[in-house]
């Protein structure tokens, strides 16, 4: 019989020490908009960012001095640190947001911060179109930091040695070891983001100048759009999202960036190495190709039957864009939210819900169940059917390609289907809670619940500054669970249980 041991003061100290480092990193992130605000004379915003950064640095510095430890991290520590870092990080990230006065109450600011960090992209900000530039940059920067994995970003800068942070990397739902060393893996992730930042921002700036923007304004919109598209976040500098730009070139570039964002870092590595075959035969690529093609056929069929659009261009610019935005878990929109309800019929929004539920690739910045789990669940089903149909003495071996040819093992199947089931249950819980308020129907609540639970951000209109507080809290938890893919959060809850009920160490 295994005995649950009660964590000691040393364990709590270790967790606090690493959380402090994460807050130090968050403080540094806040300094960027603080400098921009000061340069642009946005003094209200600058003050908010300086206060927020000071609090982060103060708490971080105190933990650095008082909690410093050289104890190694265990898996349990890693999970707890990551689960807490995303909660505490959101609370601290919300402080400057609330201080700017753009949010109705602290819960709205916390919701916006969690939505930013988890790259969901749902927004409850007041009057987005007149938000100071530095505040808007901050929202997009948070998506960039969150998408890259804020804990790994911070600790690869501050912590010495890769082995100690390996556990944190996995806990943040980024479990693909691309390179043998975690620091090198983190560096590769930065290199990919940096290279795409350069190319993507340049392409978007040119397209926006072509759409009639002045060069300075084009660059500002381009860099924000890059952050929110590559990190599949979905915030936009304007309330109308991508519709605002009325430019097919911008839409195509944004679609390409969203697709790059949803490609796993392992597959980016294969492409950088010049091996596209690795990408084409990967189970995840094939799953996405099949599911997305079927879903796009359903979207087109639904839109044509409903009479919403009748041209190839409209299906491409509205239907395909929305599907790419959903699959990549970005959440950029080319429609007003209520259009899905009023003009899109039934089949097309249902297909978008399916795309949002599946989401993108594992170990990318995308959210959702992830294509690899859907692929493995399908392979498991085929494997089980084969086992039933073939003679009992037959040895059934199912393989799949993921970096290399792998044999489908029971524990892989179990892990994939468990997380898949947890996502589905969470989607349903969110939808049912939405129904309790009596203001929305099941189409709206299911659409919105899947969108927040998968960290997508396409809104059908439930989320807004005046939404019910209870539902907002449920959505906030769904964003947190979805980003960490449950495991770290459950490990954290188990840790809390062991704090209360565990047996003291001998």
């Amino acid at each position, binding site marked *: 019989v295994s005995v649950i041991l009660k964590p000691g003061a040393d364990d709590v100290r270790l967790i606090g020490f690493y959380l402090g480092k994460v807050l130090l990193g968050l403080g540094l992130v806040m300094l960027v908009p603080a400098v921009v605000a000061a340069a642009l004379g946005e003094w209200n915003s600058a003050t908010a960012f300086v206060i927020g950064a000071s609090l982060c640095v103060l708490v971080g510095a105190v933990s650095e001095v008082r909690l410093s430890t050289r104890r190694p991290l265990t898996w349990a520590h890693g999970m707890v640190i990551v689960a807490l870092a995303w909660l505490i990080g959101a609370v601290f990230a919300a402080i400057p947001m609330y201080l700017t006065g753009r949010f109705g109450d602290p819960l709205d600011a916390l919701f916006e911060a969690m939505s930013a960090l988890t790259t969901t992209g749902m927004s409850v900000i007041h009057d987005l179109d007149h938000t100071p530039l530095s505040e808007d940059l901050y929202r997009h920067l948070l998506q960039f930091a969150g998408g890259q994995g804020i804990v790994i970003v911070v600790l690869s800068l501050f912590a010495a040695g890769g082995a100690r942070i390996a556990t944190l990397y996995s806990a943040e739902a980024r479990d693909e070891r691309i390179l043998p060393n975690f620091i090198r893996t983190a560096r590769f992730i930065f290199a990919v983001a940096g290279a795409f930042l350069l190319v993507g921002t340049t392409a978007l700036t040119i397209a926006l100048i072509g759409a009639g923007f002045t060069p300075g304004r084009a660059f500002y919109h381009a860099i924000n759009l890059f952050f929110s598209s590559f990190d599949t976040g979905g915030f936009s500098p304007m309330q109308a999202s991508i519709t605002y730009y009325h430019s097919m070139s911008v839409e195509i570039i944004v679609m390409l960036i969203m697709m790059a964002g949803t490609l796993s870092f392992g597959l980016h590595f294969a492409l950088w190495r010049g091996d596209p075959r690795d990408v084409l035969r990967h189970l995840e690529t094939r799953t996405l190709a099949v599911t997305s093609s079927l879903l796009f056929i359903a979207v*087109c069929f639904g839109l044509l039957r409903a009479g919403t659009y009748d041209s190839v261009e409209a299906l491409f610019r509205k239907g395909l864009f929305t599907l790419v935005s959903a699959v990549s878990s970005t959440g950029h929109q080319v429609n007003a939210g209520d259009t899905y309800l009023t003009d899109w019929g039934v089949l097309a929004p249902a297909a978008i819900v399916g795309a949002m539920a599946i989401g993108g690739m594992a170990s990318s910045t995308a959210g959702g169940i992830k294509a690899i789990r859907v692929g493995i669940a399908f392979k498991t089903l085929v494997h089980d059917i084969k086992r039933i149909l073939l003679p009992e003495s037959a040895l059934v071996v199912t393989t799949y390609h993921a970096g290399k040819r792998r044999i489908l093992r029971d524990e892989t199947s179990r892990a994939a289907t468990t997380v898949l089931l947890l996502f589905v249950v969470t989607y349903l819980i969110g939808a049912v809670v939405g129904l309790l308020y009596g203001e929305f129907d099941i189409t709206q609540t299911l659409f919105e619940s899947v969108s927040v639970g998968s960290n997508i951000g396409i809104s059908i209109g439930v989320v807004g500054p005046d939404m019910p507080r209870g539902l907002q809290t449920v959505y906030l938890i769904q964003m947190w669970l979805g980003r960490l893919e449950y495991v770290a959060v459950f490990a954290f809850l188990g840790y809390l249980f062991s704090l209360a009920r565990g047996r003291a160490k001998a």
Partner: protein
Amino acid sequence: MAAPSRPMGPRAALRGIGLTVLLGLSVLAVGAGIAAVLVWLMP
């Protein structure tokens, strides 16, 4: 599958981004193709 000596160099980056864009454009082309066929089938 041996990794190249400089998987993060500028040449690798150019190759990586080029192939990603190519992959993305082919996805968009397939999407446009599906849309064209369905518009043709359901005028």
